[in-house]
């Protein structure tokens, strides 16, 4: 009994050693595990931001006036805008069409007169709706400047501003609404999905294609041991990449880690098992490296990018698409890391998502195990 167990341990050690040798000899696996996270996180951590600052806008006054200048000063003073004056509406429209500005604010010639008459003076705001999100931001910024101007003007004239309900927003977890704070943890999840699948997507197919799987079959090592050897080797590599990513998020991008590191560690391990399992499943089902590579390209990046809640809110998707997102491994991990980084150890979020990760990992590994019996066909 003990001899048999010793044999199993020895075989597993041998298999692990073989996998590590293979990893070391083709440096691309090491590049995947360590170079990819550093390269991608650095690029995206700096490059990806939804915070529009210094939005270029064109200001048009049909007839310059003191009232007009007073209002435009409120836009010029705002840190959100980089305003420039346009001589005429035609010029401003040309700038907008060319993409040189994102919006136009125009005061009509009779602005000062209508300011003092009943329905009030109109201020025209034109935005380019092609990028609807930026357009909305610009509208919001103009509204903010307009509100401040109204309040300041009322105060100068000695009246209280008539706002019946005064809305006081309290943004939790990310007070200054820094988009990097939620994008970087999400990126860690996306990048690790890619790495997990990339590491393992070709390994089983490679053994089948090169005929070395048959060589493994005639050894005393069981299929389970072969699988464990592969999983163990790549799990170690993946964990290294993961630690590197988390370290970069915390120290380079200064995203607060409010939850516990050990919970993050545990959830990451579950997630890595699921991501590696997905790669092994692709590899086992495809049996050829070419097809496995194609499937990995299709099934990992874009689904993780678009359907994980990393950037697009899952709650806003139609029910059918929401149901589809449940098969995207990254979805559960994005929810966990966003909460762990920004909110802390919220068990109501962590437990169900971690359970889902465990189920997915088990399912992928079970499929791999069932489909890779010692059999020639």
């Amino acid at each position: 009994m003990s001899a048999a167990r010793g044999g199993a341990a020895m075989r597993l050690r041998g298999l692990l050693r073989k996998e590590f040798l293979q990893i070391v000899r083709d440096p691309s696996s090491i590049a995947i595990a360590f170079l990819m996270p550093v390269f991608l996180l650095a690029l995206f951590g700096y490059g990806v931001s939804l915070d529009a600052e210094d939005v270029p806008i064109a200001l048009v006054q049909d007839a310059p006036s003191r009232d007009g200048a007073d209002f435009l000063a409120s836009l010029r003073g705002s840190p959100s805008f980089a305003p420039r004056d346009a001589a005429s509406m035609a010029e401003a429209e040309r700038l907008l069409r060319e993409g040189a500005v994102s919006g136009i604010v125009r005061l009509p010639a009779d602005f000062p007169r209508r300011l003092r008459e009943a329905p009030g003076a109109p201020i025209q705001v034109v935005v380019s709706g092609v990028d609807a999100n930026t357009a909305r931001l610009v509208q919001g910024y103009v509204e903010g400047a307009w509100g401040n101007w109204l309040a300041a003007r009322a105060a100068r004239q000695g009246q209280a501003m008539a706002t019946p309900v005064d809305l006081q927003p309290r943004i939790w977890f990310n007070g200054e609404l820094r988009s990097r704070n939620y994008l970087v943890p999400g990126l860690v999840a996306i990048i690790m999905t890619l790495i997990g699948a990339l590491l393992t997507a070709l390994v089983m197919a490679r053994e089948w294609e090169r005929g070395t799987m048959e060589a493994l079959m005639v050894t005393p090592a069981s299929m389970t041991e072969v699988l464990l050897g592969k999983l163990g080797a790549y799990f170690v590599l993946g964990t290294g990449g993961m630690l590197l990513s988390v370290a970069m998020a915390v120290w380079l991008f200064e995203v607060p880690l409010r939850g516990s590191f050990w919970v993050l560690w545990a959830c990451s391990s579950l997630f890595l098992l699921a991501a590696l399992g997905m790669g092994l499943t692709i590899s086992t089902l495809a049996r050829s490296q070419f097809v496995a590579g194609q499937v990995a390209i299709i099934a990992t990046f874009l689904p993780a990018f678009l359907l994980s809640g990393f950037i697009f809110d899952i709650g806003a998707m139609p029910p059918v698409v929401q149901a589809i997102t449940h098969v995207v491994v990254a979805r559960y991990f994005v929810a966990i890391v966003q909460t762990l980084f920004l909110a802390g150890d919220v068990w109501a979020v962590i437990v169900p998502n971690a359970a889902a990760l465990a189920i997915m990992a088990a399912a992928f590994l079970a499929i791999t195990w069932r489909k890779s019996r010692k059999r020639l066909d």
Partner: protein
Amino acid sequence: MWRRVLALVRKEFLALLKDPKSRLVLVVPPLVQLLVFGYAATFDLRQVPIAVLDEDRSAASRELLAAFGAGTTFVKVAELGSAAEIAPLVDGRRVLAVIHVGPRFADDLLSGRPAPVQVVIDGRNSNTAMVALGYVRSTVERFNAGWMAARGLPAPPARLEMRAWFNPNLESRWFFIPGIVGMLTLVVTMLVTALTVAREREQGTFDQLLVTPLRPGEILLGKALPGFVIGILQATLIMVVARAWFGVPFLGSLAAFYAGLALFLLSGVGAGLLISSLSATQQQGLLGAFLFMVPAVILSGFATPIANMPEAVQLVTYADPLRYFLIVLRRVFLEGAGFALVADQLWPMAVIGAVTMSLASWLFRHRMY
């Protein structure tokens, strides 16, 4: 020469389409992905889950909160009894926002003082938070306008008249779907090209190809044409679905669309073949494909505007063919651009294509194992 190239093209198509799994991979996913991603990619929220906490319980507070119940923008998930119940709901992501009306709301409102109303928003996803806050703000503003009009209070001396060109309702889907057309086209070119040379290298058949009368330029042509043909067919199909199914307007000229597509495919196929000819194994080819594809998508301005990136990263985006193609697609779809308006985006893609293609063809002969 053409007979030789055609023979090679025929062989490449056979290699791609003979395996039923590979055939399936090329045809089904792009369509399914367009449908799923087309619905998923939007920043507009619907049915935002909210909770309300009314400590005032007056007619005025009920009127305000009723404004949040009307329409499909918000869904009231819970009515809270005390402020202590806010944290568990928000922490656990059960609601995105909590509207908190204080006990002196009606007193303040009726005596003409600004009546504070607090809104707590889950800021974990700052963009969603900002959009939700915008919805809450416009609901409150409508309430304010109605309240003032009903009581004959003076309106503000100036008002904003907002208009949006090209996309009057600011549907963010119109922005994203042309982008998805570009992304899926990129993925297809990678699928077809990134592993082809690497596979032949790994199996040793590339050496055989090199001793045939085919010149490197002809091998390049034979390897590039399948990607080109499949890319054109798929992009056309995806474009038609975007137009017919999602109703995204296609206002520009088809000539501008196909000119952009052809040059983008040239640069994409070139990049794919360059990656493939640099790799000795398919594992390396796959790594290269990801190292190109992922940055190309994220830095293209698909979801996060290039203008928001730091200067240094903005410079990197000039090497990204998808950046130019997305601008072409958006101008052609939404702004109704003709050939002249997209010309400035076409030549950079041609340059990228020429550079990658010639490098790939040079590497065919000069990288041997």
